């Protein structure tokens, strides 16, 4: 059976079409439900392996990116998502979806870690540019450590902020929740612009829960599934266009036929 993805829709989500296409190309069956539908029947979550929140500007990002949807998800879907997670289901958030997971407390989802938030880029404005994410140890169950995933960063509020900057970032890394960090073409972690477009603490691009089933990151691998989409059109600096699809396949692998009871 194909992995089943339930994709959330809400006012302001705008990366739904390409995310759905990416999941389908990676072999999933995708269902989309509006937040209001899901609120009235959260049991729909029982029929999915992966619950995904795409990027966008939910509710205009008023009151902070992803903030209002985060409160909605926590209030109306909290129990259903905990059940889904306890059943072995995964939760994925990209860009605005990642902001929702962080602001609802689902990521990193561990007590005792320093409080963190996602806020305005160092430049204080929206920035759209190509970036690279390096697979870190907590993501090793999906992909080899050090794998480089090229993806477009396109956000205004993608900077991880912590009370004690780099010291707190170290604590997150030690806690095993830092899944992806910005890096250069040689796979070296880089916290400087333009490699890390937001100026995120610890060059953190994405977080994962310790059990590996809640994952979120800022850049958009779903936007570039082919060589044609690369800025240098496959000349080599950004891979050959196959990396992003491999990434989605890897994320879905645990739910591919027969793996899950």
């Amino acid at each position, binding site marked *: 059976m194909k992995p089943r993805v339930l994709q959330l829709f809400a006012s302001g989500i705008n990366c739904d079409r390409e995310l759905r296409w990416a999941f389908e190309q990676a072999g999933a069956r995708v269902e989309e439900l509006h937040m209001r539908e899901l609120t009235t029947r959260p049991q729909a979550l029982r029929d999915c392996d992966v619950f995904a929140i795409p990027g966008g*500007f939910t509710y205009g990002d008023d009151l902070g990116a992803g903030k209002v949807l985060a409160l909605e998800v926590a209030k109306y879907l909290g129990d259903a998502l905990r059940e889904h997670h306890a059943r072995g289901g995964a939760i994925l958030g990209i860009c605005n979806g990642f902001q929702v997971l962080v602001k609802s407390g689902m990521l990193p989802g561990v007590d005792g870690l320093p*409080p963190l938030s996602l*806020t305005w880029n160092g430049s*204080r404005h*929206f920035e759209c540019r190509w970036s690279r994410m390096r697979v870190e140890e907590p993501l090793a169950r999906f992909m080899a450590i050090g794998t480089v995933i090229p993806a477009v960063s396109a956000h205004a509020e993608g900077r991880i902020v912590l009370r004690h900057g780099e010291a707190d970032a170290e604590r997150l890394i030690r806690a095993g929740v830092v899944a992806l960090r910005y890096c250069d073409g040689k796979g070296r972690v880089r916290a400087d612009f333009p490699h890390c477009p937001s100026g995120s603490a610890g060059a953190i691009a994405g977080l994962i829960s310790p059990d590996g089933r809640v994952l979120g990151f800022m850049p958009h691998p779903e936007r570039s599934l082919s060589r044609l989409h690369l800025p*240098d059109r496959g000349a080599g600096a950004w891979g050959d266009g196959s990396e992003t699809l491999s990434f989605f396949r890897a994320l879905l692998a645990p739910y591919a036929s027969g793996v899950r009871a």
Partner: protein
Amino acid sequence: MSASAWRVELELEAGRADPVGDGARRALAARGLSAVGEVRSGRGYLLPEALDRAAVDRIAARLLADVVTETIRIVAPGDAPADGAKTLLVRRVAGVTDPEAHTTERALALVDVALPAGGRVESYRVFRVDTPGSREQLLEAGARALANPVIEHVQLGDEPVRRHAEPPQRAAARREIGLAELDDAGLARLSSAMGLALSVEEMRAIRSHFDAQGRAPTDVELESFAQTWSEHCKHKTLTGPVHYRLLDDSGALLEERHYGNLLKETVFAATMKLSPEWCWSVFKDNAGVVALTDEIGIAIKVETHNHPSALDPYGGAGTGVGGVIRDVLGTGLGARPFANLDVFCVGPQGTEAGELPPGTMHPDRVLEGVIAGVRDYGNRMGIPTVAGTVIRHPGYVANPLVYCGCVGEIPRSAVEKAARPGDTIVAFGGRTGRDGIHGATFSSEALHEESETADAAAVQIGDPITEKTVLDVLLIARDRGCFHGLTDCGAGGFSSAVGEMAEHCGAEVDLDRAPLKYTGLAPWEVWISEAQERMVAAVPTAKLDELQSLCTLHEVELTVLGRFTDSGRLVLRWHGEVLGDLDLAFLHSGVPQPERAAIAVRRLRPVTAWPEPAPDAAQLLLRVLAHPQVASKESIVRTYDHEVQGATVLKPYQGAEGRGAGDGVVMKPLFHRPEGVALAVGIAPRISELDAEIGALCAVDEAIRNTVAAGGNPHRTAILDNFCWGDCRKPDRFGTLVQAAQACHDAAIAYGAPFVSGKDSLNNEYRVGGVERPIPPTLLITALAHVGDCARTVGTPLRGVGNLLIQIGRTSADSGGAVASDLLGLPDSAPARPDLATAPALFAAVHHAIGEGSIVACHDLSEGGLAAAVAEMVIGASGLGARVDASRAVCDDGVPLTGRLFAEGPTRFLAEVPMARLEDFALSFRTLAWATVGEVLAEPILELREDEHVLARIDAETLAIANGVPGSGSPEAGA
């Protein structure tokens, strides 16, 4: 009654970088506020007085504040904290759209707080300023540096805050306006006093129409005529009769013509003559539609939003984007937008404050505002902003131009539409307010010194997320067959939307049903309001419930406004009382169309020689690269999400580091298909100033050339026209417009590129101290070229060491309008004229060579000529370089060195061709003008030569720095 409110203010923690505060400090200092120390920025919210402290604390901590970065300050209702004396609160003027407040009101429930009955939230901006200045100084500098007086006001934080009062409910009644007794002067006064912008002839026509019926028109009826007959909606100048004369320098008549309908006989006539089968819908809907595949079409529209952007750049440009997106949404039964473009024309950098006419904003502030407006609207809509440019010219100081375009895809079956009698008139989307009242008539009038204050109501503020929900609902509803007809509410609001849809049937409208943002609107205001984010549909009664549930799901407000009839009349009611009953035939075709005079002068300009001996090529190239027309626009493009939807397969900035300026972008809107479109613009006001005919030919050539360079098919290219001109009631202004329109016709025929849509803006003048200043004649041409296979497209960055660099197309001696010519201070001279006889064959050959893989990179020669083109190809290449020998350039006899390198004549390219493909290439170009001028080098350097003599040897990073490429000059840039 105004009431007090809780204040919740969030400020970034001390020690955290605050770029907004830093910007405010610079702006305040520039406005003369003495010794400004640190400025900290924050955001504030007014919450209803009726809430208790515990609820306000909960809202502040859980809903409003960021857990890590912000500190919370709460001020109880009626309190006036003394330490607020150095805090500026920037608040919206009553009635200005406040989407964030609306979100907050709805989100209170998420932290278990109920919004008190009648309670409202307001959001505002906060600046805490460290200054010894007085209250008055702080307020005055704040008002000028941090607020836009059209939509905002400023107060100090130690003053009690009052909520804006709700406007009083107005008792509406039928109000008739007697015209029968008025003479011409009286009619003119009435038109002016009501802000109708109707001419005396038009007022007379309306008077006789109502005299014949033995009654006076009502206010709502007069407003309907004012909207429907406005220049903005009716395009009276372009579609009316013209007496055109072309004179020579001495005043002798060279040519004389009468046009019955200028547009129909020029631009539209070319389309009719060409009539390719791939044009599915032209000049009849909100956007033109051409074929992408057999089943899917592409809808494209480009609009202008000049006057609103002059008053409020941010809101004006944002609603310009929102408006053109709605045009595409409202094309056929609905198209799905997948690309936006925008072009700004503003005054020069470094304009001194003293040079600014009274009431105008500094060009840099205008540009900053319009970029931010496009960014925030387009990004939130999830539509990539992919193409455009910025033009700097002193002629736009008082009257900036903002063009916004949108491209969408639409199933062929959804292209045709017609409202049917019996269909329900449904409005959905945003609510109606006083925003943009008289926008259609205002944009038809010239700006003047008092515009900034007098026309506040003409300003519109956008709410992109409301429009996004409209988009979501609309596309699902279209596919479920919910619409017979559909259009957007743009200029003229409901009056235009319903009036157009009812043109061939009839309609009855209950204006009192329209949902309002606030109370107190008169019926005529509801009818013509240009509040944003609204659509009107003709819905078959059987589908109404389905549409309603879709709207409920997506949180879109739907209202039944009335029904379409077969009466040929437009009946307007308010709580049952008939306030208007108009004959639709007269409304749509009764406008008198007097013949207007148009006079153009053909000036014989000398062909000025490029200077000899040639100035230093290296120095001139670096200056050219730094010129605003050539300088990198990458820093603007990066603030736009130009990759959302995953359709941008050839990007505006290209190459490994995204630094190479592209010619056209290529969009691939369908994941499962190889087809796409190349999209580009052409605009040449500097040339139009010298010669409006050549300027128009050049704009068409440039737009098509850009798409061809990217791989677009010149045999399947549609173009769009947007004329922005001065006041065309004046024969000299109108004369250059007629010249440009004729040139558009000739170019369209020659290139085989039909016009599919257009929009004009003909009152771009500024009146100050009795002097009227028109903008330069500004024709924007947008080209949309079919791409059969997106894999067969090329960018501008160099690809491979040892490849040949080939100049395609001939350089002429003309220097007129060239950037280098301006930099060298050469006198005005004739600009180069496109050769319509050979250009199409050349475009076809380039297209063929790209398709067969002979050309692997291609850049058109435009501003800065050959030298700038090769420099940009090097900048984009990251690691490769180029050698170009100017003595081998293809050119007319006797073109001196500077001309070979920097002339800007049309229809030329620089192509990169692998040695192994040279034979194939040569075969495609047999009889055409081309020559190998250089090669690709392994090191990042540009070498310009004249035979054996090295003119310039500049490393790529130096080029990038001169060009203003963001990040250039840093230690590892270009590595």
